[in-house]
């Protein structure tokens, strides 16, 4: 029933067609600075302005981030976590964008931004709490300028836009002071692009020219639904309809993602308003540990995407250019090992919350009614203790 060509007719320009979840090829508009084969290439508009040490740093970030993901996945299998949202395959999109941030920038994540959290200095152990069911995010958003994970799809894009409006009102935009000017990043997925909230966020951001970057990780899937269900043209083009620019970057290329995000963030800080960055990538894992992708997608797709692995290409680049040696890589492995251990032990050691504390978290000023419920429930619970005693 669906007619996939967008007919031009007399109605304006021929629109480019989306390639769909099956395609690994981001198309001509894809911005790339490091090929899947590990070759650095030039792009007319964007260039990577850091040295090879930085690239080694990115490599380390990605390796450790993947390790966090692997450990968490394993912990879920062992029943230590209720569920885990894997980022496998999205390391470059997250590290590249995360490393482009300045301390004063603020991030509004979804539930999958483990790599960005890493860049913001959030203790990975804290990421596990929500998935273990001991809390709903225990880090202080203001400590690392990294908001709590948001599960309602798209809701955080409006929060990001509002926060950016606050940054404007604080006069932290366009002053030229690099310590002061700040940008806000809203992370969201390809599926989220269909939510009213996300589109309203585009409208508010454009209307107020807010300093926000809409960073969309198009990992081709929203659980079982391929990108074609959400958009029949490349997603970054959505922004054009709202009056601000959009670009598609190779989300598996950490250098390009860094360069493009950095430029978008600077536009925001300079007062040039919002930008849409589509990081074209692939969810190599399941949607979450409870999902079974074999029900809805072909394994060949996955195989093809494996050839575009975000970490492998950097390793090839580093090795081919003799930037890292065996011992460096071994040290990194050892570091990952230690991180893994720390996560395993830390996770198992996480105390369950106290149900009575729950009543204290609802309000800044607790109501008498809640205090009463808390007290009565306390008495009720201790009545069992007494019974046992």
């Amino acid at each position, binding site marked *: 029933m669906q007619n996939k060509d967008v007919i031009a007719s007399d109605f304006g320009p021929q629109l480019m067609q989306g390639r769909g979840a099956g395609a690994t090829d981001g198309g001509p508009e894809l911005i790339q600075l490091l090929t899947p084969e590990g070759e650095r290439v030039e792009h007319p508009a964007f260039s990577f302005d850091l040295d090879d040490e930085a690239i080694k740093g990115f490599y380390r970030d990605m390796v450790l981030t993947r390790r966090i993901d692997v450990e968490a996945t394993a912990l879920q299998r062992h029943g230590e976590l209720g569920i885990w949202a894997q980022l496998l395959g999205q390391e470059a999109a997250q590290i590249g964008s995360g490393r482009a941030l300045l301390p004063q920038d603020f991030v509004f994540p979804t539930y999958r931004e483990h790599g960005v959290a890493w860049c913001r200095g959030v203790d990975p152990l804290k990421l596990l709490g929500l998935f273990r069911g001991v809390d709903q995010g225990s880090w202080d958003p203001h400590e690392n300028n990294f908001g709590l994970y948001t599960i309602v799809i798209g809701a955080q894009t409006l929060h990001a836009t509002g926060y950016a409006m606050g940054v404007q009102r604080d006069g932290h935009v366009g002053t030229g002071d690099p310590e002061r000017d700040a940008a806000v990043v809203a992370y969201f997925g390809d599926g989220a692009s269909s939510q009213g909230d996300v589109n309203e966020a585009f409208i508010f951001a454009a209307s107020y020219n807010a300093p926000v970057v809409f960073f969309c990780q198009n990992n081709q899937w929203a659980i079982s*639904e391929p990108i074609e269900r959400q958009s029949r043209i490349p997603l970054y083009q959505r922004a054009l309809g709202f009056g601000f620019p959009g670009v598609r970057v190779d989300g598996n290329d950490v250098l390009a993602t860094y360069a493009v995000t950095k430029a978008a963030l600077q536009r925001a800080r300079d007062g040039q308003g919002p930008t849409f960055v589509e990081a074209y990538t692939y969810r190599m894992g399941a949607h979450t540990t409870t999902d079974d992708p074999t029900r809805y997608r072909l394994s060949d797709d996955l195989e093809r995407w494996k050839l575009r692995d975000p970490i492998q290409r950097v390793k090839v680049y580093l090795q081919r250019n003799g930037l890292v040696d065996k011992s460096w890589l071994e040290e990194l492995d050892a570091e990952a090992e230690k991180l893994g251990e720390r996560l395993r032990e830390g996770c198992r050691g996480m105390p369950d919350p106290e149900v009575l504390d729950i009543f204290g978290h609802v309000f800044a000023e607790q109501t008498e009614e809640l205090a009463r419920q808390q007290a009565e429930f306390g008495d009720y619970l201790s009545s069992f203790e007494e019974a046992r005693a």
Partner: protein
Amino acid sequence: MSKMTLAKALNAGLRKAMEDDPKVLVTGEDVGKLGGVFRITDGLQKDFGEDRVIDSPLAESGIIGTAVGLAMRGYRPVCEIQFDGFVYPGYDQIVSQVAKIHFRSQGKVPMPMVIRIPFGGGIGAVEHHSESPEAQFAHTPGLKVVACSNPVDGYWMIQQAIAHDDPVIFLEPKRQYHADKAEIDQSATPDPLFASRVVRSGDDLTLLSYGPMVKVCLASAEAASTEGRSIEVIDLRTLSPLDMGPVVESVRRTGRAVVAHEAHVNLGMGSELAARITEECFYSLQAPVLRVGGFDTPYPPARVEEEWLPDLDRVLDAVDRSLGF
């Protein structure tokens, strides 16, 4: 026919409804190839095609709003909301359109639509996946609200809801999906959709619940019986309209009532039931109607949900308090 879980029974009921009426459509997120995250629509797209089992873009208001249009065109859409907490982006379309179009049009535009919502907690999920939104819909004129509690009801009630000409919010106790199996006699004639049912009879107190709490209440009644207390348990099944007949009959007899649900007690179904029961059974009541339910906090992290959720002990505690009056 073999025994079925609630999940399988709902799937079978949906399949039957689609076979019986070509106008029945299923729409929602991941209802197609995946068969829904709970597999309630498993296999339906394969057998009925993409035009009748529609994977929707990720937008609940869009799911409900397009269903309104489909209903106006003569279809009978069955919308799946993936989890209770995600019905809210579609809330405006539900309360201002779905609930009001029949009224607005003075009956010229009926709204035969079913909105399926897996609801309630107890499955160890993250935030927004364990909500009990029923009271908000029951408070909205123009909507009918039902909750099934077991496979047999699941099989019949979903078909009755789909065949019904008014919009029905259909609540499915997700923690029961794969819990118990039951024999379903497809040749039987089911109870009416909007009827409550006494599921255990007793003389000392009437215990009212629905959805996931029915099982808890039956266990509580069983436990109480060992202490010589005879408790009548009613599975309300319909939350709007309420079927007060059996409730009033029972409470007039027992003189005591306790309402149990997972939803927050404050302005939950229990408050309406308490108010009506008191009005209709004033002189029979030996004790005020007591309510057991979620505290007035948001649903807590999974690791404390077992303590937070009303359970057998808390139901019995309320029973004791009632009998203590």
